[in-house]
């Protein structure tokens, strides 16, 4: 949630990294001095300390970076408080409007959420300018998005408009604009999920389906959408907003692996209606093992922590599903869990070996 603008956000992230490096350098230097391996001459040591102190103070003043572990922990707390506060305020706006709109005339019913959206956008801009950490801009950005959701819901209800998936695109677009305009990650999450939902629903409505059904009854559409989301950062470079690509990979990967998992249990839900559902389930269970394994390998190769974690979690879920499918009914439970545990251990050793091998190679 930190950051003010595309340019400032980059600088702030760079500034935080620089401060972290300085702290690590000082720790290591102190450790080397304790071990009598390296001790800088007193005047050089003093000059270095003055330089670092000045630099850290300046970066802290300009970019509100965390300069200690305690500050970092507090930042997480502030981030959480900001997020929960935003969610609570959104709910408050929603329920307040619903508690009064019955007594409003139609123009006021329609105008109020629009005015609320514009006001929240104005506040986002204002806070982004005057408050360096970006917590308040993140909070008002989320309220702007909630007001826009309310705006279209109200127009749909007041004028009895048949529900359409296009609303997901409009909301998602505002989420992405706020994310890229102000470097905000929560609106990015909302924007990505909404646009992915729109893509799945649109693929369904183009074939004549009711728009809600494809979201949960056509897992392969979610799989394809997730795959596209996963590779977006490869095509769209994020030189400034370096925290955004992991989120694309996380939500894209989550969609791919969740859809594969669902199809591993529910063959009837597959696009391939003419095939035997049992065979489809088998195929998707194996595909799930392969895809989660591939996610681990790619994640290690490219140093994508979120992809490794996601792949690892799903790999063990798929493994458990497959073992359960094969052995649960006839095998004594202690042997079942022993085999599963040993396999998990072997997989762990394999991943560690792979990690050693891959991290030695250039990314």
């Amino acid at each position, binding site marked *: 949630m930190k950051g003010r603008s595309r340019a400032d956000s980059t600088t702030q992230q760079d500034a935080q990294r620089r401060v972290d490096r300085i702290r690590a350098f000082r720790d290591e230097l102190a450790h080397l001095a304790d071990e009598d391996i390296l001790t800088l001459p007193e005047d050089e040591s003093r000059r270095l300390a003055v330089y670092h102190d000045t630099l850290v103070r300046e970066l802290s003043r300009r970019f509100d970076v965390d300069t200690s572990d305690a500050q970092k922990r507090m930042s997480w707390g502030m981030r959480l408080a900001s997020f929960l506060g935003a969610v609570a305020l959104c709910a408050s706006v929603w*329920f307040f409007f619903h508690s009064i709109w019955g007594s409003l*005339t139609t123009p006021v019913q329609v105008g109020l959420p629009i005015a609320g959206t*514009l006001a929240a956008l104005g506040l986002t*801009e204002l806070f982004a300018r005057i408050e360096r950490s970006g917590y308040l801009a993140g909070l008002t950005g989320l309220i702007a998005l909630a007001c826009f959701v309310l705006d279209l819901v109200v127009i749909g*209800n007041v*004028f009895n408009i*048949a529900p359409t998936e296009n609303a997901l695109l409009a909301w998602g677009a505002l989420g992405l604009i706020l994310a890229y*305009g102000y470097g905000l990650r929560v609106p990015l999450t909302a924007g990505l999920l909404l646009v992915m939902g729109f893509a799945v629903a649109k693929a369904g409505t183009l074939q004549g389906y009711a728009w809600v059904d494809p979201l949960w009854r056509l897992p392969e559409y979610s799989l394809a959408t997730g795959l596209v989301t996963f590779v977006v950062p490869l095509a769209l470079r994020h030189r400034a907003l370096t925290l955004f690509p992991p989120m694309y990979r996380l939500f894209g990967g989550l969609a791919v692996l969740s859809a594969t998992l669902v199809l591993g249990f529910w063959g*009837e839900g597959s696009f391939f209606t003419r095939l035997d559902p049992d065979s489809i389930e088998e195929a998707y269970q194996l595909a799930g093992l392969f895809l989660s394994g591939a996610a681990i390998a790619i994640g290690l190769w490219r140093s994508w922590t979120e992809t490794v974690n996601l792949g690892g979690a799903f790999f063990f879920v798929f493994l458990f599903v497959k073992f359960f499918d094969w052995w649960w009914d006839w095998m004594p439970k202690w042997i079942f869990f022993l085999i599963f545990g040993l396999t998990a251990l072997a997989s762990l050793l394999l991943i560690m070996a792979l990690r050693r091998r891959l991290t030695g190679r250039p990314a």
Partner: protein
Amino acid sequence: MIRIGLIAAVLLVAVVNAIALFGVMRNRGLTDARIVLTERELAVWRGEREDTALYLELEWQRRSDWNARRDWFGEEKLRELGFDVSVDVTDLDDEDAPRAYARRLDRRALAVFEHDGPAWDDWREEQTRLHEEQLDDMRRRERGDDEIERSERSHRRMLASASRLLAVDVGLDGGELRRLYPDGSTHLIVPVVASLHVESEYDRDRGELIERWLEGSITRLRVPYLHVPHQHRDALEHLIEEAQRAEAATRPPYPAMPSSLEGEPRYRVAVSWGRRFEPWITSIERIEGAEAAQSPPEEVR
């Protein structure tokens, strides 16, 4: 200097609202149907307890047995709506055939609803016939006169309060449907979601499958609730107030709702449907003296 993010966000909000409101104007620019309905077809509906909005829910007769007897929503209509009906289910030896339809998704369509016309007459006759059969059965079982009298009263009340809207056709082309049903004061064209089912009939004595066929049904209306504009609430407010007074002591978690219709309807509503087949309420009038005709609820029970 104002950053581009703010400009883009404001532009998006403005454009999206403009598109939505232009769509409303376009819909209302041409009236496709205008029908006067009553509480029978439009029941008061409210959402959350704290939600002050008021809606009217469009009710229609959903009896699938009646639809099946009329045989208007069969394989041909399903194909017309885009359902893949290529797997034959009528061959009773092919046990796997119904599975081909297990995951058919519901499809968007337009349905024609007839109000208080031949379909309603037919439905009413059918209900009366079924009721007569039920009475015969009760007499055979030597049920008491009170019970028979209660059943007759209940049947009369049902006929007096049931919705007279029945679906009579479906399609994808609104213009073509309007050509087939040109009277906009008796036939509504409404966006719906339609589904496909495999229906079966068994020999009751032997428990054997004797027939299997494909049938469509209307799952839901895409606009099931009509928002009551502020200027038309007065005609319904007294019903809500009565319900609120009655429920004030208990304060249930849901909003106060008027008692369901059990006699003569208490209001009439003029509704128009536009170019995009989306409705809007043009007037609501109280029907004076109708409240007195409402039967006490315990009689129904």
